[in-house]
């Protein structure tokens, strides 16, 4: 039941004291005439309402969450504790800087740690999410080319296996997209890339956007050659940090030849997703791009931390300094794990993925016939669909009946019946074994009783929903009488 249907005229909570000054009323020409329908609720009913909503949701603590490319690792509770310290939550962003030294130190320490992990020189924390980070990174590249007088560099190369945000961000940055097909291993087709960059189009190339490991969970072994080719034609290379969780302490984007990166603190650095945000998508870059960074960067001056505007800053991506409390959570996590713990996180993320892949390949086909994957792998259910009529979607919905959040479905687009599995390092072997067993059981069920899977899920608050109807006749708000 919607909260509006629970509302009763005259109910409410006792929140505000009486007004202690003379009441001022705005002139009638400025006054609201339209009635305002908001819930009228007793506090107990508000709290129960949201408790009921939570019962119809699935969080990381409700069970295994192997959602590929999303890195649904455990969100440590200590993060929440530090981010709710009143000295972080109760400060105004425009206070004098000498009263904000703690906040600036959080930014400075986090920047230092992210530089060490990625091999970059400077970071901005303004971007609020991964896609916002991509947009920021592309604007950095744009500003760089324009400063060099390269106004014709407006094309960005994006592999067909990339996240949809990559091409969408490129368009927002005023760039046109050259989609390149992957090779049979799912990696960048180096020869095709060379043709583009060494041909006529080379001087129009702004850069390349790449995830490494890529969305098939593979580390591109030709990475140095790839970044060299792009640099060779005058382009810049952008690292989409969606998959950084595979390689921390093993390899750094900076050493692979990337010029700038965005990271998802809400994936790799354990801050919660909040049902779709707030995240944080800080962008790092090498020295030659640093002077174009948006917003303000921290510097030390006479023993104090100050904010400095980069000399050729591209502008502001967002008000103030980004989703600061998310950065506090990420710093808490980094401090707790330290150098060894962070490397161990990646190592175990990759181990868990390989363990699951090895066990599941008896039944499921692994896309690109991968032998060793990184932190995630992709199962291709095309054969299962052909033999049983059971699709990736059906298997995913079947998992819901077992309390397991399904893997990412139908992505990357280069694999037809894709299920992309990312177990993360914070799952025990017991949890993995249980999930493997469930997936094997569903595979067998596809042959013995495919109908049961077409109708799944059976145990959730609602069954499959009519998405076509929802889009055709949109009901996007509650209609009051």
């Amino acid at each position, binding site marked *: 039941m919607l909260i509006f249907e629970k509302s009763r005229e005259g109910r409410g909570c006792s929140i505000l004291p009486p007004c202690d000054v003379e009441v001022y009323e705005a002139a009638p020409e400025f006054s609201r005439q339209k009635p305002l329908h908001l819930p009228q609720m007793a506090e107990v009913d508000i709290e129960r309402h949201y408790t009921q909503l939570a019962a119809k949701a699935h969080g990381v603590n409700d069970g295994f969450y192997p959602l590929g490319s999303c890195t649904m690792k455990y969100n440590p509770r200590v993060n929440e504790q530090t981010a709710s310290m009143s000295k972080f939550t109760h400060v105004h962003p425009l206070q004098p800087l000498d009263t904000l030294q703690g906040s600036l130190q959080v930014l400075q320490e986090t920047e230092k740690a992210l530089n060490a992990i990625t091999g970059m020189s400077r970071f901005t924390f303004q971007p609020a999410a991964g896609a916002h980070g991509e947009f920021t990174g592309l604007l950095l590249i744009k500003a760089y080319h324009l400063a060099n007088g390269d106004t014709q560099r407006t094309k960005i190369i994006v592999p067909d296996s990339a996240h949809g945000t990559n091409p969408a961000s490129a368009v927002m940055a005023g760039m046109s997209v050259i989609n390149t097909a992957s090779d049979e291993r799912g990696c960048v087709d180096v020869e095709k890339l060379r043709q583009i960059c060494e041909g006529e189009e080379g001087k129009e190339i702004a850069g390349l956007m790449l995830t490494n490991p890529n969305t098939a969970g593979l580390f591109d072994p030709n990475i140095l050659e790839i970044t060299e080719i792009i640099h060779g034609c005058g382009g810049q290379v952008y690292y989409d940090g969606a998959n950084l969780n595979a390689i921390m302490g093993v390899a750094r984007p900076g050493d692979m030849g990337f010029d700038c990166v965005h990271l998802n603190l809400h994936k790799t650095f354990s801050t919660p997703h909040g049902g779709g945000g707030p995240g944080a998508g800080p962008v790092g870059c090498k020295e030659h791009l640093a002077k174009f960074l948006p917003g303000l960067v921290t510097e030390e001056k006479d023993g104090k931390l100050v904010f400095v505007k980069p000399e050729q800053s591209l502008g*502001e991506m967002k008000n103030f300094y980004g989703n600061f409390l998310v950065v506090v959570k990420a710093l808490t996590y980094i401090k707790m794990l330290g150098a060894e713990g962070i490397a161990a996180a990646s190592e175990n993320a990759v181990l868990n993925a390989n363990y699951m892949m090895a066990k599941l390949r008896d039944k499921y086909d692994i896309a690109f016939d991968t032998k060793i994957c990184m932190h995630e792998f992709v199962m291709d259910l095309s054969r299962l669909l052909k033999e049983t009529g059971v699709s990736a979607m059906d298997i995913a919905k079947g998992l819901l009946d077992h309390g397991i959040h399904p893997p990412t479905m139908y992505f990357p687009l280069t694999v037809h019946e894709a299920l992309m599995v990312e177990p993360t390092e914070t799952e025990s072997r017991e949890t993995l074994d249980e999930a493997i067993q469930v997936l094997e059981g569903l595979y067998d069920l596809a042959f013995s009783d495919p109908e049961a899977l077409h109708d799944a899920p059976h145990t959730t608050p609602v069954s499959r929903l009519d998405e076509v109807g929802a889009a055709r006749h949109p009901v996007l708000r509650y209609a009051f009488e």
Partner: protein
Amino acid sequence: MGTFVPNTKAQQQEMLREIGLGSSDELFADVPDQVRLKNGLDLPEGMSEMEVLRSMAEIAAKNRVFRSVFRGAGAYRHYVPATVNAVMSNETLQTAYTPYQAEISQGVLQSIFEYQTMICELTGMDVSNASVYDGGTAAAEAVALCRERKRNKALVSACVQPGVLDVIRTYCFGNNMELEVIPARDGVTDAQALQGMLDDTVACVLIQQPNYYGRLEDAQAIGEMAHAAKAKYIMSVNPISLGVLKTPAEYGADVAVGDGQPLGLPMAFGGPYLGFMASTDAMKRKLPGRIVGQTTDTKGRTGYVLTLQAREQHIRREKASSNICSNQALCALAVGVYLSTLGPEGLREAAVQCTSKAHYMAGELAKAGLTVEEGEFFHEFVTKADVPAARILDALQEKGILGGLPLDGDEGSRILWCCTEMNTKKDIDEVVAVIKEVLAC
């Protein structure tokens, strides 16, 4: 070192053996030797939870929390009811992913549907999305949304929050839209100047109500001018003010945006906040971001799904209306709880108290000898003085009071003040007394 890895060393070895690998190094066989990090990460050693808490508390202690705050300018200190933090710390709602798997995400989806309804009610608009990053990006996305093939220019008032104008400018740098700033005149948008700037290349006109200086714009007239030139009309509004002030819909706006921070989110050094964004029905298929719709399941039960996804990046890639993916869902949840807790009367009361206290304070400051800039305002206003702003603000800071925002640097004298329901008469009188002292010497 701290760790959140449950598998023991022995288990890790066992797992490696079972999948036919000799060592964990073999997991990274695809990583070329030239890019392998040789000496580990250059980071401090890890810590226990107790040590981390201590370390973070030490850092936090270097911030100063003012007991009394009279500064707004885009971030506002309002009362946050206990219900809000209670719901926001619910671990399921806090740790859930974007609700792609609708069958197990009805709670999240329904909360967004309720949020959308409340934003429509507040603004009077027809359709709301599930939120964008903040008020600045909401304004910038709104400008992009109004672009048409032959209309590539945005006119934005000089009286919008400077940070918001900067974000719009950056987004226009990205998508190559033209941006012209409508000048200010006497603290409000210069309507006469606007008239001269309108032509058939203008996609939209954007103003802020109340504007950056707290002043109420003649939003009716500006909207009519925009529409007469067939441009879209975007209003950036303060959500608390809508408890008493005319809605964007009543002014004829096509798109209403703003920052939702005043509705239950702490100031938190600037974020996370959320941007709300609502439009007329005619524009709903161009809106950026997630939108939740009501539908039915196979058994006819009511349910909710992400809808109109043909606008979005994961379907349309380079043809999407925006790249936005993650938004500020948990903040939108907070807004829902906040508005449910205050209710229609509570929100109205909060708005009345904001504007009443600001007017009381403006009156007292005028009596004390400051010049209050003239014109109708909501809960922010500008003063001038014969002394530099810094002298007044330093004197206040010594008493633990964060005064208004100096508008012209240290040497200028203009100050932008803000009052909310949090400022008691006693706090205001204290500020006035301090200022009297400063002016007396």
